[in-house]
């Protein structure tokens, strides 16, 4: 579909990962809804709300280093990596190297899955193949730092077999997601003369 036609397609804008989300009010609405749930919980069980907030503080302390890492990566990627490079190494023409790169990156990536969403959206805007974004997210289920813990609880053979299946299925997952969502992120209308590659995807 030519870009001018694609830009007129409201469906592609609605489902796209990126441009139409510029200046989205969703993050604040989402946070507001969650705070509302906390207010309701506090009315019925104030102790549970306080304990939840304490747990939130603990989780926040764990996640801050990962978030800092992600934002540094996003800054460096925007500064140094051009869309052509993403398309070449992780795009539809990247071949076996792209699959291996996505699997390796997913296994190495630390922290919860949601901290990587915005970076992947940015990558997809720059030409990352949909299947490889799916591979990256599923390969994250292989938790290298926690493998000794898994071996302790379930044994070495179980850990080896499960890890092998997780890597195999990360490829299957990528292909399945791409079959539904298409090989590339749908593009919306150009928002500004200079595209904002980071905030567009968030």
């Amino acid at each position: 579909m030519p870009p001018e036609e694609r830009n007129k397609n409201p469906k592609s804008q609605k489902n796209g990962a990126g441009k139409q989300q510029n200046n989205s009010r969703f993050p604040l609405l989402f946070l507001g809804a969650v705070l509302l749930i906390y207010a309701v919980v506090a009315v019925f069980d104030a102790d549970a709300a306080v304990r939840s907030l304490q747990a939130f503080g603990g989780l926040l302390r764990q996640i801050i280093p990962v978030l800092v890492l992600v934002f540094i990566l996003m800054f460096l990627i925007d500064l140094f990596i051009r869309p052509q490079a993403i398309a070449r190494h992780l795009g539809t023409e990247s071949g076996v190297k792209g699959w291996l790169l996505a699997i390796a990156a997913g296994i190495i990536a630390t922290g919860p899955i949601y901290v990587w969403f915005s970076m992947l959206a940015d990558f997809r805007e720059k030409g990352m193949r949909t299947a490889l974004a799916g591979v990256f997210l599923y390969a994250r289920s292989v938790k290298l730092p926690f493998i000794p813990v898994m071996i302790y609880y379930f044994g070495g053979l179980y850990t080896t077999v499960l890890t092998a299946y997780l890597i195999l299925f990360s490829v299957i997952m990528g292909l399945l997601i791409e079959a539904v969502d298409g090989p590339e992120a749908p593009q919306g209308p150009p928002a500004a003369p200079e595209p904002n590659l980071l905030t567009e995807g968030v």
Partner: protein
Amino acid sequence: MDIRASAGKTYRSMLQVLPQIAGILLLVSLLLTIIPPEAYAVVFSGNPVADPVAGALVGSIAAGNPVTSYVIAGELLSTGISLTAVTAFIVTWVTIGIIQLPVEMEVLGRRFAIARNVFGFVCAIIIAVLTDATLTVLGGGI
């Protein structure tokens, strides 16, 4: 190369991402607080077909550090819950996120997010069955 422009973009991105992550963390904290680990065992009936589905469902809703899922899974195994159910639970714990689904749809697109979570749920059950079967064949069951 424009450092100020890239820093500005990263800053605006942070303003969008941080409220979403704060919301997810608040929801996860609430869930971890109000659902005690022993409550997970209640949903398993001993049915070889229903238990893996139940395990995958519980893992999809629950969230937190993967080590927590290993600890809970170890407890479930010791109470007689099947390895297939426990494996489905472990896999969906780290791959599926009902709580963060609205954020995932917003950031990566609705079709991508729904496809990823639905296929991930089914694949978790298949992986669990295959892992159990492979261990049986290899003679290395837990």
